[in-house]
């Protein structure tokens, strides 16, 4: 099914490859500030794509995905600073494995009870989970959440750190998008779509709903954790407040909604628009930043509930070959 999915989405894949080449060359031409903006775009877009695997495909809207950013970041940071394996690259890999592993375990443990809740109950339960983790992390001294952790520098000495993390985010973004695409075009993705449309009917058709939801949840958590770990290294120093951030959880939904919920191109498009808007245009309007975000959220839901792609994609008439963005 993967091969067939690649065939039917070949135009989107070509578009993605062109974008990838452009993004890979971009740091050569961009000023440092713009590299930072582009880095934030990659991080945001990848987060939104990872969220989409559960929220967009299966319709389980997590309001607390920052739980996995924070958990991944802190587990990796604690492991890397405690063991300090040489060389630095290996240390980072061990931290990455530990952090994403922790996210996988947490998601798998939560899956059974929490994925039985539907709609707003799931959303709120995830919000609760992220808040509990954030507060525990902040208040239990062993986790160093309030004191903060300085992460080991992993950029090689002769490489500009800004560019180094840019490429790290780019690789992580490609991985995330690839994984999400593989989910989308295979049985798992179709099963998740059936679950989103009508879970009881999906089960009646033979979709192993519990297993599929758990798989989507764990994959989404692991990818989110991976991104959180890279983000933590890019920051260099983290506290609970800098990685357990409710606005991360909210923003991924805004990106997905703005671009087009349930698609893969949508969250990327949404992230691009929002990051450019908030960093380049509204960067000077710190006072009203939250107001504008809120107003945009309201405007999207009221005016374009299907997102930008919901309007643009039919115009492109790419759907003739059966592929959706």
């Amino acid at each position: 099914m993967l091969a067939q999915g690649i065939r039917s989405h070949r135009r989107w894949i070509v578009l993605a490859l062109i974008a990838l080449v452009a993004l890979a060359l971009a740091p050569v031409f961009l000023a440092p500030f713009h590299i930072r903006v582009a880095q934030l775009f990659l991080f945001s877009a990848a987060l939104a794509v990872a969220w989409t695997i559960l929220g967009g495909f299966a319709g389980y809207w997590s309001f607390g995905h920052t739980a996995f950013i924070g958990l991944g970041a802190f587990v990796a940071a604690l492991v890397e600073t405690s063991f300090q394996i040489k060389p630095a690259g290996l240390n980072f890999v061990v931290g990455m494995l530990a952090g994403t592993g922790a996210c996988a375990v947490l998601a798998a443990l939560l899956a059974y009870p929490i994925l039985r809740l539907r709609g707003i109950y799931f959303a709120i339960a995830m919000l609760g989970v992220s808040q509990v983790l954030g507060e525990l992390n902040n208040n239990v001294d062993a986790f160093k959440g309030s004191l903060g952790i300085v992460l080991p520098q992993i950029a090689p000495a002769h490489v500009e750190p800004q560019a180094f993390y840019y490429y790290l985010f780019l690789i992580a973004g490609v991985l995330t998008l690839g994984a999400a695409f593989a989910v989308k075009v295979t049985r798992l993705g179709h099963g998740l779509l059936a679950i989103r449309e009508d879970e009881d009917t999906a089960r009646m058709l033979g979709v192993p709903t519990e297993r599929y939801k758990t798989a989507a949840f764990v994959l989404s958590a692991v990818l989110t954790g991976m991104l959180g770990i890279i983000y933590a290294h890019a920051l260099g120093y983290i506290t609970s407040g800098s990685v357990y951030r409710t606005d991360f959880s909210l923003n991924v939904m805004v990106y997905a909604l703005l671009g087009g919920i349930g698609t893969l191109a949508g969250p990327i498009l949404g992230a691009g628009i929002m990051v450019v808007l908030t960093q380049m245009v509204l960067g000077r309007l710190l006072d009203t930043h939250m107001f504008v975000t809120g107003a945009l959220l309201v405007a999207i839901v009221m005016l374009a509930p299907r997102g930008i792609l919901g309007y643009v994609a039919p115009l492109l008439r790419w759907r003739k070959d059966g592929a959706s963005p």
Partner: protein
Amino acid sequence: MQLVLQTLVDGLVLGGLYSLAAIGFSLIFGVMNVVNLSHGVIVLIGAYLSYFFWQTLGVDPLLSIPPVMAVLFCLGYVYQRGLIQLAVDRSSLVASMLVTFGVALMLRNLLVLIFSPDFKSITPSWAFTFFVIGPVTVDLVRISALCASLVLLSLLALALHRTGIGRVIRATAQQDLAARLCGVDVRHVYGLTFGMSAAFAGASGAILGIVMPFSPPDEVHWTINAFVVVTLGGVGSPSGALLGGLLLGVISTATSQAIGPAFPNVMMFLILVVMLLVRPAGLLGNAFSGSR
């Protein structure tokens, strides 16, 4: 023993406030299935309105409750008819929840712009009077807060059960289609319900202002508090909100006393998650039947 009693009394006072702050959220949730994530910011608007009356006109915070409720009733009605209803009609309930989240962000930002992000508190002349009853110390502020909360909750219960509009609201909550067939203007009822919800949120804001300092970012806590209260006590009824609020008040006071002042929030969210998992059907009614 004295510590236990004192903790219990403090918890009950706090719980009365939680109950009042949550009842509006509970009503909207029960009557129209909308999760109003801007509920907390409405509570704070009540607090800031009361603060404004006290600062500029010298109105006693308890006396400012009726005007605060009147203003917020109107705002609530307009908010529901002008935005929430449109969002519900246009897209899903989850999307309507996002709309309320967006509004919460906007209002919170406005509060920061108007009143600054600093903590404010309302201290009327009688703020420092206190009584010693046996082993327990209670100040006048807390007693009046608890009394005001209980009085308002009782009034609401009476209104819901003894007045015509109360009956219509309860009927609409149970079967909106049937209510519509009986000639009820359901949208008007939703508007009135939202108005009442906002009015009671505002009243709780006025009361919270004399009990504790407040600042705009607190709105998140008041929204989540409301959700926990509803999850604990049951949806849509003043008695449920009272039960849930008092439980939450006692639990968080006891947690901060027994484990540490940083932990009431952790405990609250733990209870929220556990209650969602263990008793969603019993207390919330339809957690498993889906709401999409």
